[in-house]
């Protein structure tokens, strides 16, 4: 009905998910003792901060109508190489410098495959993910879990460091979201990224340098993946390369999609990443306090996400005029 449409327009996926998060939060706050304790609120944010950093990188690529399935692989591989070099006696700075070059190189590789070789982002990053991990795991690393050596005292210190009582991973998450938000909203490449994601052909015709922009978005996601890896490693004092086989990548895509950054590109922003991550964080935290086993947690998580997607489909039906071929 066109008449009540404006009212319904407030119910975008983002607001639905935000509402769900608020309702869940209120429910847990009433039902569970200690849920609203400041330390627990910090736990909630912390439990999703690495996921959030990854989702920020994924969000940037998705806004430009791409997808980066190699993020978890890059995160694991770059940090693992860094720790391996440290164990071999490299200094922190030289190990970090060489890994920075590797990270940018991996982003460039993904970007060139998509922008210049014309491979679809889905397949290009799927392939690079398997290749990069396979190569590094078989040729360079001997172990699944690589520990931060005691000689790298400053990395170990970072894991214990607190700024305003916030641990490093939370600070990095907040900083990444803020910087990405500013860049996406007010910088020229940021605005171009939206235009390109919304309508690639039109953006190209307008003279937007679409190819460099695609490459840049993949470099950004690679660097954020590395950052997420460091944030995770300093806290755990190790990097477990088995993360590649975990559901982490799906959770990253989930946060992006559930938060409301459409996979068709040109929509959403960092706010959506925060909302999506918070919903997941609140859910997991509450269910852990309830001592629910993992399988039940996964089931409930899936049901709530499914509910959000169906509700969004009902309230915001697909617009046949603007939907594009290739929409996921």
């Amino acid at each position, binding site marked *: 009905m066109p008449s009540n449409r404006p009212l319904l327009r407030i119910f975008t996926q983002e607001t639905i998910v935000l509402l769900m998060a608020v309702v869940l939060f209120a429910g847990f706050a009433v039902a569970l*003792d*200690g849920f609203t*304790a400041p*330390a*627990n609120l910090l*736990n909630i944010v*912390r*439990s999703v901060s*690495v996921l959030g950093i990854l989702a920020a990188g994924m969000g940037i690529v998705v806004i430009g109508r791409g997808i980066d399935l190699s993020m978890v692989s890059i995160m694991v591989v770059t940090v693992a190489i860094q720790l391996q070099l440290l164990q071999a006696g490299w200094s922190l700075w030289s190990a970090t410098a060489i890994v920075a070059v590797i990270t940018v190189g991996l982003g460039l590789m993904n970007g060139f495959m998509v922008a210049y070789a014309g491979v679809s982002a889905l397949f290009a990053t799927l392939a690079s993910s398997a290749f990069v991990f396979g190569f590094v*795991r078989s040729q360079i*690393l*001997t*172990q*699944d*879990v690589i*520990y931060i050596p005691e000689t790298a005292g400053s990395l170990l210190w970072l*894991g*214990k460091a607190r700024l305003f009582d916030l*641990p490093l991973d939370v600070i990095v998450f907040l900083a990444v979201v803020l910087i990405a938000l500013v860049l996406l909203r007010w910088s020229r490449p940021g605005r171009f990224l939206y235009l390109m994601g919304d309508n690639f052909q039109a953006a190209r015709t307008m003279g937007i340098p679409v190819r460099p922009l695609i490459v840049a978005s993949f470099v950004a996601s690679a660097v954020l993946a590395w950052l997420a890896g460091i944030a*995770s490693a300093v*806290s*755990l*004092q*190790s990097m*477990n*390369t*088995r*993360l590649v*086989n*975990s559901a982490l990548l799906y959770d990253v895509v989930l946060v992006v999609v559930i938060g409301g950054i459409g996979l068709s590109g040109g929509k959403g922003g960092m706010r959506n990443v925060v909302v999506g991550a918070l919903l997941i964080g609140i859910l*997991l*935290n509450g269910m*852990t*306090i309830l*001592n629910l*086993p*993992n*399988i039940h*947690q996964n089931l409930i998580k899936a049901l709530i996400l499914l509910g959000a997607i169906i509700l969004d489909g009902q309230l915001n039906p697909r617009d046949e005029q603007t939907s594009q071929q290739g929409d996921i």
Partner: protein
Amino acid sequence: MSSLKKTFRDIVLAGACLAGAVSGAYAQETNPGPEAYRSALEGKRVVMVPMTMGFDLAQGWNHFIGEEVKQFGGIWETRDPNWSVDAGAQAITDLISSAEKPDVLIVQTPDLNSYSRLFKRAQEAGIFVVQVDNPSNYASDVFAGSDWKRLGELETQAVIDHCGENSSKKIAVIQGDQVNASSLDQWAGVQAVLERNPGWTVAGTADSNWDATTARNAAATVLQQHPDVCGIVDFWDATAQGTASAIRDAGLKDKIFLATTGSGEAIDCKLLEDGTFGAIVTSELPRQSQDVVAAIKILLQSGIKPGASKNYLYTHEVARTKKDLTPNTCWSQAAIEAAAKK
């Protein structure tokens, strides 16, 4: 007379010599051991399919079992499913139907059921099946590894012993998952000890899903809800790293006693030494491997058919704390790698 005596003496001497020579020859020909050992074992193909080759347990087995198989003239091979249950099943299927069938298959099964049918098929094809570390519902020729329930009891008892009766009597448990026997059995062990110790309770428990980050987040939440727990049992050293980081972050490192289990690789001893772990029950990998080696040697000589017997070889395990540490408590992967390169 004297000549007769002399003749007699000569005969006795000659007889003695002869007897000596005969008995010498007898000794040589009647110790059939080395030859039987050699002929039964030489050229036998032993293949190991762990859950992955990329972790401490598998690399330890590869060294401790593999070296010995090569010593007795056997052929030692490994397959790497890299945590994929399907890839493992495929590897076992290929081995069963290959032209050069293994004589002994050593498998670390990922769960209770996945490979049960394949084990049966392997035995029907004339292959001995040795399961290591993770038990399954299928009783094969040999299971060698931990009695995980007993292991859970040892961990819990270590926590209770350390905390004492004057503590809060509350513990937390970070489990693995709800499908893996090693996790389910450890949980049963925790319960058994709590039953014997009235007043002790599990204040909070969560699954790590064998992931250190999940363990850290879960432990942080549990500690936030129950800051008075005096000890935590974590079912694996890799996830206990995450649990330890939650304890550190909560500023409770000196108050909370963390007990866990691991392969006994050098890192375990280091973490025990620096106080990250309070107690660890290691799976005693070198001795466990020796059990597997002995089982292989016996099976291949016994003349019995695969599937004809079912044997369980549990490793004797103890909970160790910092004061039990000796330079030989842990084995070192770095040393194994260095040895392999020589």
